[in-house]
């Protein structure tokens, strides 16, 4: 085994002698591993953020939205609403404890001299505060909960400092559509950039402001009674809604979606799985190209060093010794590329994460686990060894006399 250390030493020497070529080959691997690590850590981070948000919803919630979830764009842009009858139908369903209706829209809010487009959610304070506290993880950073019916609003954490030039404080006034609202509380971060940059006000005030029909809503969150089967309740809600709608409009087109938080997780999970698959496929191509680079370098190097191989064999090197030396060279190239790629990839992911913290649209963290780093290093070492195997075997099988004669 002691000689293996020497082989390693010789391999390092050989790489150093051809340092430019070695570095260029390493660069090829760096790029591939960099792609894999940065994309994987980001997509894993997004997945975790989504899961975290879903967990904060609690498993017992059901969401009812107008429109078909399989066409998300249409669902959010159609402006379809849940009518009063629909909400009644949901409330009547067996196993339903509370129905919390919500509406949201982007509006211009003025704070001091500044007007900014902000996202505004209306939800009924009376039922809402308790549910939001218990199931959405709402908590006050500052101030107090608003009183139902009063012109008081809550603001997300981002609104406090990021949206307007001047920080918004508890007690400040924000003007929306010419009406003054008093900021009474600032929420702690809700884990999503959009939620954190929203204004929250009582649903009835929201409806006055936007002209939305009283009793209607854009979305309903349903709290299921303890002991009821969430999926069964969701099915029943769907059925009741269909009947109500059929009576009213005369069609049975399913233009609403009833989703449990568990199913939402499934949907998000399957989308992320497709994205991650695509990432791995593309980054895999980059790695294969890098591997071919190693193979090319090794074949060239073996052609150049045929005579050296002959000398080593003449002085007693076994095939395995030559094989190990060349495998080490390829493996070291791969491993060095892996270190560089992992380092840069993790760095980029961290940089994006930091950028994401200040940008109002993104809000995710990169997930750089020790497992991912070990994977990056081991994987690149293996790619190196694998790409080096055929060249190394050719070197090992050279006949000493042929090798010595070559290039004489």
């Amino acid at each position, binding site marked *: 085994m*002691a*000689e293996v250390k*020497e082989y390693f030493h*010789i391999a390092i*020497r*050989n790489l*150093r*002698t051809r340092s430019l070529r070695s570095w260029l080959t390493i660069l090829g691997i760096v790029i591939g591993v960099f792609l894999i690590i940065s994309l994987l850590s980001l997509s894993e981070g997004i997945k975790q953020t989504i899961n975290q948000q879903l967990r904060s919803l609690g498993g017992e919630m059901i969401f009812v939205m107008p429109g078909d979830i399989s066409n998300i764009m249409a669902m959010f842009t159609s402006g379809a609403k849940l009518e009063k009858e629909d909400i009644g139908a949901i409330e009547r369903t067996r196993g339903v404890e509370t129905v919390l209706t919500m509406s949201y829209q982007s509006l211009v809010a003025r704070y001091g001299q500044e007007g900014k487009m902000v996202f505004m959610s209306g939800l009924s304070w009376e039922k809402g505060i308790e549910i939001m506290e218990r199931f959405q993880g709402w908590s006050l950073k500052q101030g107090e909960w608003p009183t139902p019916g009063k012109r008081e609003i809550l603001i997300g954490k981002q609104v406090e400092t990021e949206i307007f030039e001047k920080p918004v404080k508890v007690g400040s006034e924000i003007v929306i559509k010419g009406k003054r609202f008093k900021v009474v509380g600032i929420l702690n971060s809700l884990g999503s950039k959009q939620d954190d940059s929203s204004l929250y006000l009582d649903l009835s005030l929201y409806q006055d402001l936007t002209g939305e029909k009283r009793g209607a809503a854009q979305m309903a969150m349903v709290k299921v009674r303890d002991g009821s089967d969430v999926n069964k309740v969701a099915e029943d809600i769907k059925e009741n809604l269909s009947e109500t709608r059929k009576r009213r409009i005369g069609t049975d087109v399913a233009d609403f979606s009833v989703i449990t938080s568990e199913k939402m997780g499934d949907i998000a999970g399957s989308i992320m799985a497709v994205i991650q698959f695509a990432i791995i496929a593309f980054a895999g191509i980059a790695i294969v190209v890098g591997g071919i680079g190693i193979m090319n370098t090794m074949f060239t190097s073996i052609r150049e060093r045929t*005579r*050296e191989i002959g*000398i*080593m*064999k*003449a*002085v*007693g*090197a*076994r*095939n*395995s*010794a030559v094989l190990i030396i060349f495998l080490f060279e390829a493996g070291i190239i791969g491993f060095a590329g892996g270190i560089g790629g992992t380092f840069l990839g993790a760095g980029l992911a961290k940089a994006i994460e930091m950028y994401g913290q200040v940008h109002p649209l993104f809000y995710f963290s990169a997930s750089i686990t020790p497992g991912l780093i070990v994977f990056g290093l081991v994987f690149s070492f293996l790619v190196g060894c694998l790409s080096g195997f055929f060249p190394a075997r050719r070197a090992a099988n050279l*006949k*000493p*006399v042929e090798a*010595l004669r070559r290039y*004489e």
Partner: protein
Amino acid sequence: MAEPVIKLENVWKIYQLGKVELVALKGINLEVAPGAFVSIMGPSGSGKSTILNMIGCLDFPTQGKVFLKGEDISLLTENQLSQLRGKTIGFVFQEFNLLPNLSALENVMLPMIFQGMSEEERRERAKALLTSMGLGERIFHQSPELSAGERQRVAIARAFANNPELVIADEPTGNLDSVTGKKIMEILTDFHKKEGKTIIVVTHDPNIANYSEEIINIKDGQIIANHLTASKVLWQR
């Protein structure tokens, strides 16, 4: 007579160059006794290098047998042969053939690695060998930093590394000036005399052949004379 270090028995070597057959050796019979100092002489194309490859167990004959210390090398696997070659034979080449990436010391240590010697032992022995060659100050230099004579002395130290029975030198002075060449031959002769080791030198230079105790002339792949003095260099006539 003691068992020969190397014995060639009716050795033929035929190279297939496309459709043309080139017969390099035509039934060579040769025995080299332990402790002998033999020169093999011949003009270029006479088959000297081929015979050297056979003696050095670097190649297998097309026909006939090669025995290294009584062992038929055709029965050995390539790895066993490498091992045996590394232990029994030291090579000195005309072009020195040092590994350019390694220092003089590491070049001398190289054959010992393949024999599984411990690092300390290797280092000690390599240092001692290089010092005895007058290279004590140059052990950490790589071969491009050494003069031709120094390189050849490193190569000789490497050939002696595993204390081999047999040292084969292929035109060892071919790339050296006459003064340096003389020094190199003195080192080889010394080794032969002091350690009683077998030396086979391949050369076309009668002055070099004169150092040896036995001269074998070959021409067209055959041994044409076996004699003691270089004055009988038959092929020159």
